[in-house]
């Protein structure tokens, strides 16, 4: 894979954030045991975050060298990194994770599948309902029965 000749929207900012994150990671790693010895628990994290910091600087330098693309600014960044569909789907998955403790894994999965398939697929709610129900049944059989995984149950039903 070759590096594109021009920058992607927000690439320079992302590289800068990586350097800041790597610096923070190094500081946190130093906080584990400082430079007390060569076999302390903080040595490997410091080495790893040091590599992150060094390579992060190289990546940032590379973004400073390359010309920006024609599409710049906040709208281009939002369109590139945060398309509405990705944002909404991620919010839906976050909601799925949040409701698992209350309604349980299988009902939450059914709800996620139904809403996601209904909105992403153009076949209507009946198809979405049928596929969701079938999928939840297969998941229950495979994980709950065959592999005997104790799937989380909801606090609302217990």
């Amino acid at each position: 894979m070759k590096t594109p000749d021009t920058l992607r929207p927000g690439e320079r900012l992302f590289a800068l954030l990586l350097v800041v994150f790597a610096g923070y990671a190094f500081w946190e790693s130093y906080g584990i045991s400082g430079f007390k010895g060569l076999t302390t628990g903080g040595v490997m994290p410091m080495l790893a975050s040091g590599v992150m910091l060094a390579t992060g600087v190289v990546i940032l330098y590379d973004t400073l060298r390359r010309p920006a693309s024609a599409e710049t600014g906040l709208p281009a960044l939002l369109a590139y990194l945060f398309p509405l569909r990705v944002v909404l789907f991620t919010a839906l998955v976050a909601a799925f994770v949040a409701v698992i403790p209350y309604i349980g894994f299988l009902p939450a999965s059914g709800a996620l599948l139904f809403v996601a398939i209904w909105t992403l697929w153009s076949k209507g709610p009946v198809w979405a309902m049928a596929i969701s129900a079938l999928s939840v049944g297969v998941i229950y059989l495979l994980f709950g029965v065959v592999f005997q995984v104790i799937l989380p149950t909801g606090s609302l039903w217990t």
Partner: protein
Amino acid sequence: MMETLGFFATSWLDPSLLLLTALGTFAGIYIGAIPGLSVTMAASILISFTFKWEVNEALALIAGVYVGGVYGGARTAILLNIPGAPSAIATALDSYPLARKGLAGEAIGLSTVMSVIGGLVGVLALAIAAPLIADFAIKFTSRDYMLLGIIGILLVGTLSGESFAKGAFAGALGVMIGMIGLDPMTAEARFTYGSINLMGGVPFVVAMIGFFGVAEALAQLEHISAAPIKQKVARIVPSWSDVRRYLGLGLKSSGLGTLIGALPGTGGDIAALLAYDHAKRSTKNPEVPFGEGAKEGLIAPEAANNAAVGGAFVPMLTLGIPGDAVTAIIIGALYIHGLKPGPLLLTDTPHLFWFIVGNLTLANLFLLVFGLTGVRIFTKVVECPRAILIPLIIILSAVGAYAIQNNPVHITWALGFGVLGYFLKRYGFQVGPIILGVILGPMIDANYRRAMIGAQENIGTFIYDLLSHPISLVLTCALVFMFITQLPFVKNRKRQTRP
């Protein structure tokens, strides 16, 4: 001799053992292929309900799942670009581009044949050279394991996507994630921020599911309106000329895979990565560049990861040291049945050793049959529209992340890793090195500290040890060589001198 042959053929002649091996291999292919399901998880669950069985029956089923599972990871790597198992991370690099060119059937056929060749080479090594390989592997010290781990991380040069710096950053990030939790040597908290959940560390399967499963699902949302992923599966059985052409590479990769598999703590994932790297360096003029659908990039890791299965049994059966996570579970199964893996196993219970050899051979033959048939039915699963597939991947990822330790928090972590992986992918980072770092990081940390303690915390002594012991010296030279070949000016010079 006849007695040995009888032990070898036990599972070939007993219908119930034959059936269990076939069932295990078939199930293993699907377990390995479904992202979120792991062979380790399946093997550990299988032990929980096979402990009352006869040892041969339990081993037949588990060994079948193991062989099938290591191979199965390649299926989704080829068809979806989602490795079903860590051992298929390297496979995805070239197999998915092959599938995008309409050669999914050929890729599956070649991966099957080379996996079987690799598997048989591994079993042959187990049968013939087990004591020799075990003798060699036991000579490895902590220092050597540390070097081996760093070499694994440096392989990011091969996996790095756009640039070596991005690959190295991703690898180091993986090591950092692998460091989270209580330090196993001093119980010091590392990046736990007072959270009880973080004290146990991040299971690499959770990171793998997040960075591969969830991130891929989010990335594919962009193409939701596009036609469903329909990989053309035309010819599955590879041509004889192709098999003959790549046989040399397959055998070399199998040898490498067997050796790596025999090293305790390493498994099919490292074997596949090293074989991929070897193929990339040794193939002078590939028909298609590596990363864009080179068949060599598919063959080498597939032969190596299945060869590592036989290799992993070597230290387990001869020394009682597991070669990887699955053989660690199999050791548990042997203990449950009153057997003690170790040097005496071969002399006290030769029937068991030869049964395992015969059973692994049989599982590989079943792999050939199941690998080359039923592919079209399998692809129907991935031909389903993205609008159905993406939410299903999320659900499978969630249940896979949860099932590792029955901990709901891991679902949240997998989602978080998925979002991070999505951002990294958008800016040209590969997520493979991150997973590699998560897996190898703790191993490098522990072995570095053991080696440094051995050198009395003296850097001079440590370096002297690296250069004065033959195995360490070879590995150090390999490490230096790999680093130098990744430097930009060396790469540019190589490009300029290439005709």
